[in-house]
């Protein structure tokens, strides 16, 4: 199988990429890791006239800390974040999520920016970015803007990016206190998309109560969703068994799962509740050593 013929461009700077995107408009398609786009092109689901390959733009790779935030370049590969030991302490959710994406071979190629722009409702990164309250840095011909992740996903395979805007980085706020995270995912077989998944990020204040709670829901709606009711129920509370049970019951209320080949909607809701309870219990236990959680 091979894709339709296309014109190939391989810019070496962001400015050049944006110039090409502006020039070609909807005829152009940006190629990041290509682990979704190339299969779609081979199946002729996608047939762009021009492919703008951004793999040769070094500015889009790697991460650095800027103004108390972590800035991750859009072309950072899943495997790089999976093995980024220097991020394990402050951003454990990155590695915990990355190791669930597809398989090791795909993780060597796929990128965090490409995954987000593809906007699959079963995107593991999308779910994690919701939990971490990420902002998406997009650059267009008229400059940069930061898009909160909650405004980024519009619908399945649709984002709020303009056609001439390129995602250049993700910005993650640093946790304010002791923090722990979990990514939970059930798949039919190794490397599959999620039946359902859940990303949970919790930070505690100096009083041992929850100061920040971020919960993202995977593969249970048209886009990755936020479990806002559960987050609200956690803020200001100690991580007791009662708080955890209450918040876990609220998680499925923000999900919109559908009956499909992977399972019934009721099953997926139940899965989310169980994932939430497990994740919060593990987080409570992990944080217990760091502060006096009751």
């Amino acid at each position, binding site marked *: *199988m*091979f*894709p*339709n*013929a*296309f*014109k*190939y461009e*391989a810019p070496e700077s962001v400015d050049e990429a944006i110039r090409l995107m502006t020039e070609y408009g909807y005829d152009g398609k940006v190629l990041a890791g*290509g*682990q979704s786009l*190339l*299969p779609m092109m*081979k*199946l002729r689901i996608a047939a762009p006239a021009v*492919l703008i*390959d951004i*793999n040769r733009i070094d500015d889009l790779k790697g991460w650095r800390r800027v103004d108390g935030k972590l800035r991750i370049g859009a072309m950072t590969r899943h*495997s790089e974040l999976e093995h980024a030991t220097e991020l394990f302490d402050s951003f454990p959710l990155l590695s915990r999520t990355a190791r669930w994406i*597809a*398989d*090791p*071979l*795909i993780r*060597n*190629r796929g990128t965090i920016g490409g995954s987000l722009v593809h906007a699959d409702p079963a995107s593991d990164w999308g779910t994690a970015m919701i939990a971490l309250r990420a902002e998406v840095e997009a650059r267009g011909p008229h400059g940069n803007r930061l898009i909160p992740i909650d405004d980024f996903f519009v619908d399945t395979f649709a984002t709020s990016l303009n056609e001439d805007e390129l995602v250049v980085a993700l910005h993650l706020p640093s946790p304010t206190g002791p923090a722990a995270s979990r990514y939970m995912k059930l798949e039919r077989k*190794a*490397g599959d998309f999620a039946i359902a998944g859940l990303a949970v990020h919790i930070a505690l204040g100096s009083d041992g109560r929850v100061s920040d709670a971020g919960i993202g829901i995977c593969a249970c709606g048209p886009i990755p969703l936020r479990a806002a009711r559960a987050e609200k129920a956690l803020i200001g509370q100690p991580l007791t068994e009662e708080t955890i049970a209450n918040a876990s019951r609220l998680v499925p209320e923000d999900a919109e799962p559908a009956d499909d080949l992977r399972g019934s909607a009721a099953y997926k809701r139940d899965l989310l509740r169980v994932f939430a309870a497990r994740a919060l219990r593990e987080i409570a236990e992990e944080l217990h050593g760091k502060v006096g959680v009751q």
Partner: protein
Amino acid sequence: MKIRVKVNGTLYEADVEPRTLLAYFLREELKLTGTHIGCDTTSCGACTVLLDGKAVKSCTVLAVQADGCEVLTVEGLEKDGELHPLQSAFWEEHALHCGYCTPGMLMASYALLQDNPMPTEEEIREGLSGNVCRCTGYMNIVKAVQSAARKMAGETGKAMGEVATSGTAAD
């Protein structure tokens, strides 16, 4: 488009259509048919090669993207007529029946052992989770990787004038 790619140590220059996938370039242009094409949908891993040292599915990389890169295929494992320890271990442990997945399994295992010379059974299974085998049920593939890991550790040990340590994951 003109590309220059180093494959198994040999530099090749070729003129390819942008839509040519790396797996097809290796097989049809360079006649290196050791790299197999199985599912063609980024699922099975039969086409696994190392691209600048990283194991990737070559059916899901464009040949033009390999311009200026180094590629290692299964043909590059053998040295001076001697099989790579992974290849002999796959033979000795009966890690294949039909052999279709074997080049991909070997390349993914090679990359795994590069990063983690003495992986546990679980790490091997995770490391090979992007490669599908329909014959063996994976048992003997895991055994072969463990056996190769021991041999390679022994060789390194000998080279360093040391005796290989026992007590590996397979024991």
